[in-house]
């Protein structure tokens, strides 16, 4: 559905995105992860036809994002990093305006307001909306045209846990309904929960691409941490037969209080690969 091949963007001699290649399958929720300034938003802007690549190619559903820009527009929805809504207009007016641009009727506007739980606040001006409400409206706006590919740029940034959970639930439902989702975030747990596959980008370069589980297994420690009834803590290696016997003895004697795997988190993997923290 989405394909990037050696995608590169240079701004005044500074390489923002450096020969990035990947593909996203139809119906896949794809996470594009990286620290601030890694090149996530620039990649999204190139994929959605907002920015010309300096070199390389990208396509959506077979249409080149530069030459076939007109063809890709009806197929995509974008949730921008900024909450770019018309503040002096109401929620409904915002959606109706964009519905007109897409040639979509008012029925779809009402459906989406209902879906994101803003029907009862639809007449309120955006300037009195909370961050969470604005973000939900942005998601609704991006879905007006029933997009085949949905791009979400940091959709839960700065949201309270409840609002973030609501947005994640919507993303999950969209993925289940077969919408291709391209999600950029620097929240690794979010990507872990939602994405079928994730790609890591750092300093404009793609440094890893796989399923969250595969990445965690590849870079995690094959160890467990054990807490016994005498409050003593022990580390056992999964590949050591002696450790396996020891574990069996403790279990048999009923001495185990807790057992924790030492599987890496996505953040651990990123730090390991990028050599820097996520921020």
């Amino acid at each position, binding site marked *: 559905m989405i394909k990037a091949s050696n995608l590169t963007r240079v701004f005044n001699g500074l390489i923002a995105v450096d020969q990035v290649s990947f593909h996203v399958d139809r119906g896949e929720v794809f996470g594009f992860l990286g620290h601030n300034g890694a090149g996530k938003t620039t990649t999204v802007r190139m994929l959605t*036809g*907002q920015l010309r690549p300096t070199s390389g190619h990208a396509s959506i559903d077979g249409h080149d994002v530069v030459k076939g820009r007109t063809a890709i527009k009806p197929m995509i929805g974008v949730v921008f990093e900024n909450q*770019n*809504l018309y503040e002096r207009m109401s929620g409904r007016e915002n959606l109706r305006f964009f519905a007109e641009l897409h*040639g979509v009727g008012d029925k779809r506007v009402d459906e989406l307001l209902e879906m994101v739980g803003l029907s009862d606040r639809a007449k309120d001006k955006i300037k009195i909306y909370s961050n969470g409400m604005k973000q939900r409206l942005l998601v609704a706006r991006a879905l007006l045209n029933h997009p085949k590919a949905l791009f979400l740029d940091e959709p839960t940034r700065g949201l309270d846990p409840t609002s973030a959970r609501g947005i994640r639930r919507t993303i999950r439902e969209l993925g289940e309904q077969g919408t291709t989702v391209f999600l950029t975030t620097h929240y690794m747990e979010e990507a872990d929960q939602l994405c079928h596959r994730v790609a890591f980008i750092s300093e404009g370069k793609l440094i890893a691409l796989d399923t969250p589980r595969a990445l965690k297994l590849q870079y995690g420690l094959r160890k467990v941490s054990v807490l016994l009834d005498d409050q003593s803590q022990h580390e056992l290696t999964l590949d050591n037969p002696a450790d396996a016997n020891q574990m069996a003895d403790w279990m048999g004697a009923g001495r185990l209080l807790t057992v924790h795997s030492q599987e890496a988190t996505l953040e651990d993997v990123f730090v390991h690969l990028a050599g820097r923290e996520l921020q």
Partner: protein
Amino acid sequence: MNLRATMAIARKDFLDALKNARLLVIILMPIGFSVLYGYLFRDTLDTMEIVIYSPDTSSMVSVLSELDAVSLFVVDSPEAVETKLEEEKAIVGVVLPPQFDLAVRAGERPALELIYRENPEDARGTQRMILQTIEQISGRQPIVSVIERSLQPPGSAEEAEAREPMSFFREIDLQSFFIVLWVMMGITMNGSFLVPTLLVEEKDKKTLDAILVTPTNYLDVLTGKVLVGVLYCLLTSLTVMALNQGFAGDVGFSLTVVLLASVALTLIGLLIGGLIDNLTTLNTWGSFVMLPLMLPGILAGVPLGTLGPALTIPLQVVPTYHLVRGLGLSLSGEGGEVWMNLVILAVECVVLFGAVLWSMRRREA
């Protein structure tokens, strides 16, 4: 070109401008000024002193005396007309022949003598009003023979020439001058400030990005802004004209000048908006751009000869120069003299449109 998107953008911006206090001030300010100045100068504007001699009390006397804009002196001899003019009690004297009304109604060609205190060009508005009054009496286009003369002794040809290249338009009455001034102000503010604000705000708040990922392109956005800009320019101008009896003289020429100037100034606004990416910069530089555009209005009453070529020549490149001159002459019923202004305005519209397209292509590249 996506007409549906263009109209949606135009409708959104038209309503949004009314919700934006700053833009609302820009829209209403020229109208407010026109009302305020109309009130402050009501005595000056109302008084057009005419002295008339009518041997058999023509109905023209009663019609003129009922006009708010006229202060009428009726005298009992043609000599008394000249006396009143010499005493500077009136600017125009009218001497009617006997049986004037009957002659007009019969379609004959009675001789009407107009005597001017000074230069006849100074009192064109009065002459027009008198002819309109005769039309009212006769119920048709008046067929009269107008004999004009001035109390001022005729000067030499050189003197006349020296007097001729006056300001942008030959002298117009104060009311027309105010109409020109407020219309120019309205078009300049709406075109060169409201329009770029609409565009720059979309860039500043990133809503333009959201529009451009829909099946809408930059040309649709710009066209929508042009429509709104021209519409507000026209609404402001027509309101000012309606409130100040500005539908006088050569109305067709007036409206054409206003329309072309609205398009030109709106395109200038788009060029400004295309160059600037945030509202802070626009607010800082906007007034610097507006000042040269307003200059022709500010200098409208100053004789061109006193300005010097260094100012006069660049001034004549500014679209508002042609608006001020064209509208001033049209209001004075001298629309025939504004053809060149109309042509220049039309050419400027084409050039500016080309410049907007060029800047748009540059942005997309």
